[in-house]
């Protein structure tokens, strides 16, 4: 089974029966878009909160021919992303990449790549808290019933509270969505800037919560609607400044400290996209800012 990977370990770390169990959960999740399927989450060689749910999904779906990209808040070069990429390079011997376009599987924490994903790609989200109703109803038995009976009034109470307190919906990440007109779902803590990308996405989206032992999914080309009010419709705030590195005006920006005098600049959170843009500018087609 394991020609390419680490001696003494099965391909992609998990044993085959565990992978089958996870794949069954994934298939069920795809069949019922937005529904949280319980699964037997395994102990992984890293702590909860570091993407154990996403890793188990990736391990269950990855094949020797896959090309893996891992991002953490959009960046390929942060500790978590580097560790997970290295983990799969070792236990599965797969090729890794930082290029969104070249990857067949992209595991992500808290972002969706800026580049539109295409048919055949899989986006794997790491999820800390899968239950969108938990803030208003802590009882799991009750939230499951609320999902089953489509009792989602309480979900809007949260948005109501936002508008009442701030004059607008201020929820800016982990913004709840309605999947395929049926299940309310937590998109994981991605910025709401990314929410529109989930709608009718050509790629398969899989969500894994390791600690809470839940998997859910959005099949390709599924309608995903962000919850809102008629008089306070969902909207994405765009930055009024361009990326300080590539000059892009249509991306999600991170604020970073640029020097030891407290100077700050805003740069693309998606490091691959930022690099591509800079290469284009450098190749001299006159698009420089």
């Amino acid at each position, binding site marked *: 089974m394991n020609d390419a990977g680490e001696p003494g370990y099965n391909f992609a770390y998990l044993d085959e029966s565990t992978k089958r169990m996870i794949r069954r959960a994934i298939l069920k999740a795809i069949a019922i878009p937005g529904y949280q399927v319980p699964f037997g989450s395994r102990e992984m060689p890293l702590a909860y909160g570091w993407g154990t749910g996403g890793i188990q999904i990736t391990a269950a779906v990855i094949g020797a021919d896959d090309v893996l990209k891992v991002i953490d808040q959009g960046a390929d070069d942060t500790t978590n992303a580097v560790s997970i990429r290295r983990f799969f390079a070792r236990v599965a011997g797969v090729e890794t990449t930082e290029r969104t376009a070249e990857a067949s599987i992209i595991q992500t924490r808290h972002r969706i790549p800026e580049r539109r994903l295409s048919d055949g790609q899989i986006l794997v989200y790491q999820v800390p808290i899968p239950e969108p109703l938990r803030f*208003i109803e802590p009882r799991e038995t009750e939230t499951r*019933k609320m999902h*089953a*009976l*489509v*009792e*989602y*009034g*309480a979900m*809007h*109470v949260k948005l*109501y*509270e936002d*508008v*009442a*307190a701030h004059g607008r919906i201020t929820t800016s990440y982990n913004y709840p969505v309605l999947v395929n007109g049926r299940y309310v779902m937590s998109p994981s803590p991605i910025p709401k800037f990314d929410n529109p990308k989930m709608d009718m996405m050509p790629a398969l989206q899989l969500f894994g919560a390791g600690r809470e032992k839940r998997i859910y999914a959005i099949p390709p080309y599924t309608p995903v609607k962000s919850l*809102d*009010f*008629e*008089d*306070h419709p969902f909207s994405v705030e765009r930055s009024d400044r361009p990326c300080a590195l590539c000059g892009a005006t249509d991306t999600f920006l991170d604020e970073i400290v640029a020097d030891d005098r407290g100077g700050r600049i805003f740069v693309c959170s998606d490091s691959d996209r930022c690099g591509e843009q800079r290469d284009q500018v450098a190749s001299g087609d006159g698009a420089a800012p």
Partner: protein
Amino acid sequence: MTDLPLLTATSLSYAYGRRMACQDVDLEIWPGEVVAIVGESGSGKSTLLGCLSGRLRPDRGHVAYRDRDGAVLDVWAEPEARRRLLMRTDWGMVHQNPRDGLRLRVSAGGNVGERLMAVGARHYGDIRQAAQAWLERVEIDPARVDDLPLAFSGGMQQRLQIARVLVSNPRLVFMDEPTGGLDVSVQARLLDLIRGLSRDLGLSALVVTHDLAVARLLAHRIVVMRGGGIVEHGLTDRVLDDPHHPYTQLLVSSVLPA
């Protein structure tokens, strides 16, 4: 009042293990009628309330509800989805402890608006306006629409709970000791409010109370429970002034004059 009951319970029984908390109870509630269930602790009045209000599935018996279209639903035979829809639209529940009936970390407006949002209201401005109108109706300053219930007094919390329930224009409200734990003067204000609302809105209410004075001022009809069964029922002042059952006589004579 029309000629058909709103709610009809037939031979309701419920047991906790071997102890029958409620045995073969028959009860009708008519449109516009306020019915008090009185009895001491352990008499089965709260169990009966649970069975009637969709919260406690009876071991035996039926609860039939006549909906707005005149169709009769066998409440406990309906799918849970239908029953829960009923509970958050046509019915309302006011708990003794407002903490059980309110979301304490949600503003007064959010609490009142929830039932509207639950049935599909998606216009923030309309929801807020409705919430403020209801706050005013239960004598809470509409300017406090954004305050948390925790900032309210006990009496205000109870009134907020009532607004939260009535906003969906229910036809039947269940109340479990609604004035329990309140000061006497606050009680009086609440009783007046409930009575006025039930009259103005043509609301039916089932009120569980151990306080005969509350029952006298609020209820058209009274049901006396003991040991899981109804021992006497009838027009409120008839039961209190001319009690027939030995237990009712004891109950009436053991309290200060109402």
